[in-house]
């Protein structure tokens, strides 16, 4: 058989170095080629991760047993021997940039699996990689963000040793690495509102469709898609169908999901009402606060139980001892002013009474001396609404109570003298509204949280220098729209109001609650695409793809025109030549469209991906049916 020269460039020799020429025959297999090249380089190192890349065809030659003939390689081919795993800058949902080694030779789907394995995130099928948006003006002066290097981690191809809590062992190798893991598994502190305001926010569904053009193709490799070493990519949850979210094992996954949700809300990628925004803000505040003290990563359930039982016990005992003190306390500090506000009367006059708080009731008397007698009135706060009316600057500390009574709500204002008194009474009122007494274990934490909230109000106006760790600008908890709409002092009480319902949640519960509310938003989980040529329609429209349905949306009014559920879908086809997706539903309903804002492969992958997600079930948890995924999402060239 004829011997001919094959030119192979080797990355290790440098970009400038001329390609090596090796003489081969057509029946030499790929493995043999690599062996020859390696011998010729005379570099001794571990070459096991290297593979041949065929530049002209943009193809990896990954089957070592195939002969050159079988691969179709002739003398004109330019091959390159290069590592399959190369560093990549990965921007996590929480904004942290990691530098890690990712596989450039396998389909992106598997690359993501590898990355997730490295970072201890289960269910990698829900995530994918997103190209960064093209920045119009390259502002280089923008200080480079910190990149955390974890390229020292073992390659995901091997098995990764994990600790009991699922944390990969290599993260414990150095304090820096540990820090990285902590950063991944604990939510990040809020950014200053100015920064948030500067970030890009989509304003319409068309804008929201743009992001979806940037998804990488899951069935092709990174190198095939033109990515190079050290390129930046975003790791994002792509399919909004989160399977089996278990806080115990999913520390990183849960945190990253929360961060993605948080940013979606802050940047108005998903719309919500004002009330919802306040609740989200309250939860963010709470999560931020609790993250500093509580570790999400659960060690082992049995220990947890024990711990929590012990804690519970401790708290109880504390409460029991302090309950009496508290009662006394509340009796002493109780000079407040009250007025029953008659309707329509805007002038608030306050009159001084002696107040006592017992169980869930407030009683008031003319004076302290008369407190042994019958109170003027006693009000049971169970089930009442408590709202703050506070201005630290104006030294106004009022509590507004809406107490339900058979005839309606009784509106009562309590005015306290100072912050101390206010926070105690406020805490007591809040607990009472939930039917808890002062003796409840949560009383002191409630008092504290009110005080820290007040502190927040104190520091925000202007004096940035004073900001301590504890105080967060409430503006950074809401989207820019509300930053504009409300001043911090208007915003704080509203967030505080929402906060009282979540203040007692544990970190995990707060995270889950945040995700829950997010998922309950009407527009949750819809990925938008601008499509054209819906049958019988000339103008462009928006197509929304969700986990169970397709939604046709009028582009101008942004209203839903029609929805089709996947379970009524009979089949879908992609005509790759004219880039058209055609879908047939039960009852002879046919739709066909081509996608304007993204490649039709992406649309196709979304639909197939969601169908794939729906085939997962609880029993077969760990085995990811990769092949099925590719069947459902692959393009014509992938099969």
């Amino acid at each position, binding site marked *: 058989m004829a011997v001919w020269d094959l030119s192979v460039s080797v990355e290790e020799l440098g970009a400038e170095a001329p390609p090596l020429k090796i003489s081969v025959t057509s029946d030499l297999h790929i493995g043999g080629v690599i062996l020859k090249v390696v011998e010729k380089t005379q570099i001794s190192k571990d070459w096991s991760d290297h593979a041949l890349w065929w530049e002209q065809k943009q193809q990896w030659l990954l089957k070592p047993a195939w002969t050159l003939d079988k691969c179709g390689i002739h003398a004109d081919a330019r091959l390159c021997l290069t590592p399959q795993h190369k560093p990549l800058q990965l921007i996590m949902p929480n904004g942290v940039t990691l530098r890690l080694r990712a596989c450039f030779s396998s389909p992106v789907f598997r690359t993501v699996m590898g990355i997730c394995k490295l970072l201890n995130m289960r269910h990698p099928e829900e995530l994918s990689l997103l190209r960064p948006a093209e920045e119009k003006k390259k502002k280089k002066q923008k200080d480079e963000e910190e990149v955390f290097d974890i390229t020292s981690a073992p390659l995901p191809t091997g098995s990764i040793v994990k600790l009991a809590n699922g944390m990969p062992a290599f993260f414990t190798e150095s304090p820096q690495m540990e820090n990285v893991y902590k950063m991944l598994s604990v939510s990040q502190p809020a950014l200053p509102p100015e920064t948030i305001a500067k970030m890009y926010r989509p304003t319409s569904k068309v804008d929201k469709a743009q992001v979806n053009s940037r998804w990488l193709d899951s069935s092709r490799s990174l190198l095939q898609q033109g990515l190079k070493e050290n390129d930046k990519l975003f790791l994002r949850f792509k399919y909004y169908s989160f399977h089996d*979210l278990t806080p115990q094992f999913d520390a990183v996954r849960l945190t990253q999901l929360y961060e993605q949700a948080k940013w979606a809300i802050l940047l108005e990628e998903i719309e919500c009402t004002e009330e919802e925004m306040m609740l989200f803000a309250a939860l963010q505040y709470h999560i931020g606060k609790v993250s500093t003290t509580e570790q999400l990563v659960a060690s082992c359930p049995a220990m947890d139980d024990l711990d929590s039982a012990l804690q519970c016990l401790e708290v109880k005992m504390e409460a029991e001892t302090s309950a009496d003190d508290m009662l006394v306390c509340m009796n002493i500090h109780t000079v407040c002013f009250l007025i029953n506000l008659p309707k329509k009367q805007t002038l608030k006059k306050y009159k001084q009474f002696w107040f006592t708080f017992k169980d869930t009731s407030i009683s008031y008397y003319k004076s302290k001396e008369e407190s042994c007698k019958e109170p003027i009135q006693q009000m049971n706060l169970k089930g009442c609404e408590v709202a703050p009316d506070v201005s630290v600057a104006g030294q106004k500390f009022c509590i507004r109570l809406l107490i339900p009574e058979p005839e309606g709500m009784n509106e009562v204002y309590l005015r306290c003298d100072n912050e101390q008194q206010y926070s105690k009474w406020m805490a007591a009122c809040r607990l009472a509204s939930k039917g808890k007494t002062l003796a409840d274990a949560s009383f002191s934490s409630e008092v504290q949280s009110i005080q820290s909230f007040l502190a927040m109000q104190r520091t925000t106006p202007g004096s940035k220098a004073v900001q301590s760790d504890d105080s967060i600008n409430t503006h950074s908890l809401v989207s820019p729209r509300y930053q504009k709409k409300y001043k911090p002092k208007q915003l704080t009480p509203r967030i505080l109001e929402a906060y009282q319902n979540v203040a007692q949640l544990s970190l995990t519960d707060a995270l889950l609650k945040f995700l829950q509310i997010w*998922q309950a938003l009407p527009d949750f989980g819809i990925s938008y695409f601008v499509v054209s040529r819906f049958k019988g329609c000339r103008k462009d429209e928006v197509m929304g793809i969700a986990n169970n349905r397709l939604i046709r949306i009028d582009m101008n009014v942004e209203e839903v025109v029609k929805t089709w559920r996947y379970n009524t879908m009979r089949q879908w*086809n992609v005509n790759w030549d004219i880039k058209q997706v055609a879908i047939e539903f039960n009852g002879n309903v046919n739709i066909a469209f081509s996608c304007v804002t993204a490649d039709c492969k992406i649309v196709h992958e979304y639909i197939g991906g969601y*169908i794939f997600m729906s*085939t997962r079930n609880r029993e077969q948890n760990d085995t990811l049916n990769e092949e*099925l995924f590719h069947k459902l999402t692959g393009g014509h060239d992938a099969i």
Partner: protein
Amino acid sequence: MDDIDAMFTDMLEEMDLLTQSLETEITEPKPPSNSSSKSNSMQDLNFSIGFTDLNASLNELEDNDLDALMADLVADLSATEEKFAAERGSVKPQPPPAVTVPAAHFAPAAPLAPPTHVPHSAPGAPPPSKPKNELPPCPASNAPNLTSNTSVPPPPAVSSKASAEDVEAQMKADKIKLALEKLKEAKVKKLIVKVEIKDGGSKTLMVDERQMVRDVIDNLFEKTHCDGNVDWCLCETNPELQTERGFEDHENLVEPLSAWTRDSENKVIFHERKDKYEIFKNPQNFYMWKKDKKSLKDMKDKEKELLLEEHFCGTSVIVPDLEGVLYLKEEGKKSWKQRYFLLRASGMYYIPKGKTKSSRDLQCLVQFDNMNVYYCKDYKIKYKAPTDFCFILKHPQIQKESQYIKYLCCDDHWTMTLWVTGIRIAKYGKMLYENYKNAERKSSSLSSVWSNRNLQPSPSTSNASTPSPTPKAKAANGHPPQHHSEPVAKGPSNQSSFPPPPAPVDILPPPPPDPTLPPPPPPPPAWAMPVKKEPNPPRSAPQHSQPAFPPPPPMDFPPPPPLSDDAELPPDFLPPPPPVMGGFMSADLPPPPPDPFHTALPPPPAPFNPPAAAGGDLPPPPPPPPPPPASGALHPTASQRRVGPPPPKRTTPTLSAPSGGDFMSELQKAMQKKRGGQGQ
């Protein structure tokens, strides 16, 4: 109620004293206690015991005294009869005596702590059931009932001395504990509630503050012999506001009732409401309400299940995306204004004038945390509403017209149902679905009880022969068999430990020796039985033990005769002695019908009750009786499995899958093929 409370407080104090004295006794157990207990048991059968008698000697502190005390207490609360029936505590212990007593014989020296536990509670439990007993039959029937329970301790005492004493002392201590618990329980807030039933009747029952609406409904099922389908609903009506609201199954009943004013004319009504769980029967009508009704009508069950799964089984419950024009009564005015409303999980919103539907512009009308939703009646007249399809949102405490109530009016009945249901989903979320599944389970277990009952008793009793599913028929044929069931269930417990009066102490000694051996075998079957579906075997198990046990009992069974009312009963009452009867019973009675125990509650019901009232709560091994109902209860739940949605089929030009057929399986096939091809 106050009186009763006071009384209980007294009781508690006394009981404390009693426990103290008992503690001393535990350290040095005295044999005489046995005999005294027996005599006591006979004397005090009629609750003649004065529980205020603080001078009661140690002897008088015997179990039966306590029982009697308890019974007395309960008797005082004559209205509470049913409550205790429903109570698990009393229910569970009931059967054990039959099983555990033998066990005690078997290994008397062993630290019998766990098993002995059961017996104590058993004696403690029955008394409460007595008052129930009093209702249908006559009070006299108590006597045998009591003795049977109280006499549990004697056998062990005879069989082995010291250890048995210990056991007994332990039992006593436990019993006192139980009594104390019961007393504490008595401190729990209770309400006596009169429930109106749609056919005009009414039932009065006691509801304690820990009881959920579901428990009360189950209770009412027993009392009313209705078919127990999932639509049955406990509602509160407010004549002043002309509203009605169905309580959710997981709510505490006492809480909303305590919000009523003193002079309230509000009522609690028990009737069927189709809308209660309609969302789960036809989810498509709510989640796809925009689509045309016809296409939704014949939706397949599988698709419905998928809908439910999507909306209720995820991490977050998805609220139906309701939106549309409703009328809102303007605050403080008489006029109604049209607004475009939207329902979100976080609350009910409307579009302010001149704004768009976009979320940020929406104005919140209410959030649901402190609000309940009520159906309204005749608001056209009362408030000049545009239609009579109105609902209001208000704080549960508000009982009268107020500016804090949100009045809403819909164009038609269906729209109103949509909104009210939607709001309930937003408010209660997954809980509603749990409730529904629970209710479904209960109703199917109830119906299975019916069918079981109908099959088995028929041969024995001519009157129970019609297996008709309608409530009326059930009620009709329910009564006769009920009598049988009572004795039957009693049978096991009585037989095992019936020391009765006539044949005094000497009779007991002989049995113990043998009993030790025979009993062991029966228990296992008894334990296993409930799980399986065979009603008969368990029955026979206790019978085996009877002969082994006190053969004398037959003649000692004087108590039964006293049952003046149940003249025909005595025969069945003594299962073992009259062979004919025994056969009769074992064959026919095993799966006693449910009604029987509803009315004739005493001890027998215990085993049956659970399935009806407490559902799966009874798992511990309630020996013989429960099988049929239990299995019925378990059965329906088993098949609660969801299958992934049938994925649509995709055909890419390259992937030539035939159209039609199951996409997934085809894929799988194709893949296998491919794999096979590669292999070659």
